[in-house]
């Protein structure tokens, strides 16, 4: 793999690689965080402005209780599952690219 890591100016150590890598990671993380936050932060607003709608009964629960007390957990699992799948694929791709880039720059 990385036989001689101390050699200086290869692709892995370049500013471009780091910048590109962090940007891709951060974009993925932020998009997942926004999906999650949009739902989490919308709930109090809905409770505030549409109290009667949120108090509608579903299987005995009020709608808002059902969402917060039960349905929210699977929602978070789905987001985290999607994040891990994409993040592992992206990192494998970047690792491969970095290895190739290093060879190319010599």
């Amino acid at each position, binding site marked *: 793999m990385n036989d001689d890591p101390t050699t200086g100016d290869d692709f892995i150590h370049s500013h471009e690689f780091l910048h590109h890598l962090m940007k891709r990671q951060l974009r993925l993380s932020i998009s997942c965080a926004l999906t999650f936050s949009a739902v989490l932060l919308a709930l109090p607003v809905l409770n*505030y402005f549409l109290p009667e709608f949120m108090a509608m009964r579903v299987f005995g629960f009020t709608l808002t209780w059902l969402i*917060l007390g039960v349905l929210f*957990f699977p929602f*978070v699992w789905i987001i*985290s*599952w999607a994040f891990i799948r994409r993040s592992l694929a992206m990192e494998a791709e*970047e690792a491969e690219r970095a290895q190739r880039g290093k060879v190319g720059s010599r």
Partner: protein
Amino acid sequence: MNVDPWILAFAAVTVFGTIWMGFRAAGSSKTASDFFVAGRSVSVGWNSAAISGEYLSAASFMGIAGMVMSSGYDALWYPVCYACGYLFLLLFIAGPLRRFGAYTIPDFAEGRFDSPLFRRIAVCFVLFIGFFYTMPQMKGAGVTLSYIFPGLPYWVGVAVVGAVITLNVALGGMKGITLVQAVQYWAKMFAISVPAFVLMAVYGSYGGNLKANHTTIESPAPMVAEAVPGVTGATGTIEREPLPEKAPADEKWISPFGSLTTKAATMAGLSGQDAKPYSLLYTYSLIIALVCGTAGLPHILVRFYTNPDGVAAKRTTMWVMILIGVFYVFPPFFGVLGRNLLPELYGNIGAKGTDKIVLELPRILNERFGILGSILSGITCAGAFAAFMSTFSGLLVSITGALAHDVYGRILKPDSTAEQRLRMFKILAVVSGATAILLGFTVEKFEINKLVGWAFAIAATSYFPLLFLSTWWRGITMPGAAIGMLLGGLLSLATVVSTMFADQSPWGAGLKAWYASRPLVRTLAEQPAIWGLPLAMVLMVVVSWLTRSRIPADIRLKMLVLHAPESLGLKQEYIREQEEAGH
């Protein structure tokens, strides 16, 4: 004293089982690395169960149910955000931190900024947050023991349980508790779910019991029936005892923006629509504290270093979310059922109040099925023991680790041998345990869940901004990080303590009156995350910009180690470079 033998038996089995496992594991943990991070060789399955076991504390096991019973809907934010905090940890922090590789957060702080001074500041926060978090665990211990032995004073329970766990940690270290905590997760899951299913079968479903509480748009309580033995929920009617005066009314309890979040406005004499904006603000601040605070809890983060690599760290986090998410569906059910069947708890405070509903509720089955209720109550007591014992031992390890590894090993006596440090670990475990017990004596009147929420708020305003910015922003400097963390964390700590003092201390009456006329200030003081987190971040950015000449010279390599996939082998390179530079 009238001790129920079944309850005592189950609790005793849990305690002795825990101690036995700790002692057994003690035989196999020999090196310093075993003590601090279990030799970094724990599999995803074991590690996620152990993290969940450590995380599901007295607040999760007893506090949530108690708070749902006392405050209704608003309390649901706690379990949801306790679980969702892991998502932020996963998205932003878990992978990079594990790749960087360090024993503790102070290790990370020093490595990231090449600053031994910053290590000391970070250690202080491990201690602040750690001790704050031990208080609710101690309250859980006091409540449970005085339930098992009626008439036993609260402080005896705190002292006995604290002493037992301290001994266990001093002898076993972290490897001991990884095994114990993984087992305890499953014990807690069993202890909350089995009694819940039995109660549902007898007294009606979660939704059915909730329906007995009418909302503002419904006509009052169409489902209420007199409590007649034999008429059960299974056949369609929900039993309900009459609510005492102190209990919140149905429509307030089941609706958002109830008593928990409107306290400041109520004290100021506001009600209805006037109180709602404060309530919304409180809710948002609480959400921020809980979601970001999870990512900043020292005793949880240290566990991520026991993953073999960053990929395993991510997988572990996902499994933790599933394990604790499933668990968190159950405690609110106990709160809902408790409101219908044991409303007399509303009248009590301290160790006899709603915080003990999970322990007490299954016992009502005795009226119909002989000893079944006692057996199930024994099981929930055993779960409660597992809850505060596992969290308290995790906290004790991280507090003691910070003291032995950082304060003693790095600051006081850098040339100490591994053997000396190990002996110090044991001595300091006893000292920290004793301190936690003393702090536990003072919190009988506070709700368990609230105390934990405050520990989260302090973590959210100190560690979270530190970890987030130092992982993702190259421009952060040591002075920036330190000032942001100190001011954000300490100001939040101060405002939280000021509201505790105003409410509980006889000398706080003046402050209480001052707060009462300023509901906005009181809301922000009680839930500081909404201003504390942005404040810490802004300070970090501004001060870092002012001191930008102090950005570490090898910042690019540091960022590469944090972010580059491990297969590229940058970590080894980084270690070599650090050694050459003489760090």
